[in-house]
């Protein structure tokens, strides 16, 4: 359904994305995962035909995104990073406008509006002016706008950003309900969102694809080490090498001013116990020992630096 081949996009001297290739099958949900500035929005804009790539080709349903823009635009629903809303219109007026813009006939438009207002939970506010709605509602209007003409392909740029936890759950449920009948690409910088919603995750880092994998395999690849933060009252002069000598410890790094050390260790070692014993044995005074979750940065470092042998994991 979606075919991206060797795409590069430069903004003047800045290379936003470089040599990106991937494809998405019909009915699949795929996530773009990456930190801010990774190139997610750029890739999506290229897919929508909003702007041309510097190099490479993008195709949706067999149509080139830049050479047959009308055919492509008829087949996609797009939620940009900030929802494109006319603040002076009511929700209803806005959706009527968008529907006509997408070329829906009057009867179909009336029908679709009812359906979409229900799906996005906007029935109660449909006659309110968009400028008076809260952030969460505006985001929903943005999503309603994207799915209004029932396009086979949905491109959602950070659909849950800026929403409160309840709203996030609602939007995720909505996206899940669209799955199967729609091909969906969504972008996010939240690891759990990508793994919860999608069948495949495309990890983008600094304009390049770092990995393409299923959420299961991705977590497996990430699950062979854990990260702990250890704070002691007083440290030894050669604390770092000593810690490293503990079996199972892979990496130690000291925080500059305080007596805090970040310890990475393999998952199968009893590292918490070993560290506690180490501190007690040297009489350092344990203040804190807690496990840290992997940040997205860690994920990228791991995915880009891990050797393939790491892939063999018992899980």
């Amino acid at each position, binding site marked *: 359904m979606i075919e991206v081949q060797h795409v590069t996009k430069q903004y003047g001297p800045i290379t936003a994305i470089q040599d990106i290739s991937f494809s998405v099958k019909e009915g699949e949900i795929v996530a773009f995962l990456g930190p801010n500035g990774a190139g997610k929005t750029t890739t999506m*804009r290229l897919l929508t035909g909003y*702007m041309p790539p510097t190099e490479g080709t993008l195709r949706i349903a067999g149509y080139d995104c830049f050479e047959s823009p009308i055919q492509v635009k008829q087949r996609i629903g*797009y939620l940009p990073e900030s929802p494109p809303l006319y*603040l002076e*219109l009511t929700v209803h007026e806005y959706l009527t406008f968008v529907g006509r*813009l997408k070329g829906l006939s009057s009867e179909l438009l009336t029908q679709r509006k009812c359906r979409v207002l229900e799906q996005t939970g906007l029935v109660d506010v449909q006659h309110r002016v968009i400028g008076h709605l809260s952030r969460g509602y505006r985001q929903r209007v943005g999503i309603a706008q994207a799915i209004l003409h029932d396009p086979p392909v949905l491109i959602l740029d950070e659909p849950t950003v800026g929403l409160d936890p309840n709203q996030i759950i609602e939007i995720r449920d909505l996206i899940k309900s669209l799955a199967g009948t729609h091909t969906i690409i969504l972008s996010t910088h939240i690891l759990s969102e990508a793994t919860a919603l999608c069948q495949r995750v495309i990890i983008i880092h600094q304009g390049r694809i770092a990995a393409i994998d299923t959420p299961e395999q991705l977590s497996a690849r990430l699950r062979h080490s854990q990260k702990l933060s250890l704070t002691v009252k007083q440290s030894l002069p050669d604390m770092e090498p000593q810690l490293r000598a503990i079996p199972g410890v892979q990496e130690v790094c000291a925080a500059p001013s305080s007596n805090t050390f970040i310890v990475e260790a393999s998952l199968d070692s009893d590292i918490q116990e070993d560290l506690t014993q180490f501190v007690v044995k040297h009489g350092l005074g344990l203040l804190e020992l807690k496990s840290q979750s992997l940040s997205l940065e860690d994920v990228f470092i791991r995915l880009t630096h891990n050797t393939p042998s790491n892939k063999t994991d018992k899980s």
Partner: protein
Amino acid sequence: MTPVHTLVAKELRCFFVSPIVYVVGAVFLGIFGLLSYWAVVEASNQALRMMQMTDTFAQININDLVFRKVFYNLNLVLMLVLPLLTMRLFAEERKLRTFELLLTSPIGINEIVTAKFLSVVIIYCILLTLTALVPMVLSAYVSFDWHPVFTGYLALLLQGAFMLAIGLVASALTENQIIAAFLSFGVILLLWLLGAFGSTLGDTPIGHVFSYISFIEHYDRLVRGLVHVKDLIYYLSGMALMWFAAHQVVDAHRWN
């Protein structure tokens, strides 16, 4: 509904909920009324004086004393208020990021530009129609030649539409509405000054070129009741050029 219809309808809807149209309309109509009032008062004073001197019923020329004067002065008012109508056209779409919606919908840039232009021209036409009250009321009291009045309105329509087209381009160039307004005001002023400069140069090739590029002499002829094809061509080609420029600017914006 074609895309252009849809876009124009939305544009007008947005215009009429924003205060700017009412402010521009009130200022424009107010000044039109005042100018006409002064012109009429002055004309009647003149008529009175002539009657006292000659002791006969004086026939004064309403066309020259009222309409021509009003139309000339109105040009200046247009220059000041029309940039306020066009400044939001593209600038706001860019600021609100709604441009992304338009450009990812199955419509062409030409349709977007055409719709934006048509919507301001429609609003301007509504204002012009409202001013027609003045000649209609006057015609109940005095007789005058309707022909220069009609060509004067044609001049106002073409002149205004040309200024709106300039404003359209200015608005496409920036996402700041104030800058867009000043930019179009500046370009219109420049065109005006070019004409003044051209006439000081007189009968030289450069002088002719400047006078042709400026709208002054084209406007003058129409207001005097002379409809020349070359003046119509001037305005229409000017608008076409601006339409094309706006199209290019919007398109170039995507390429970054």
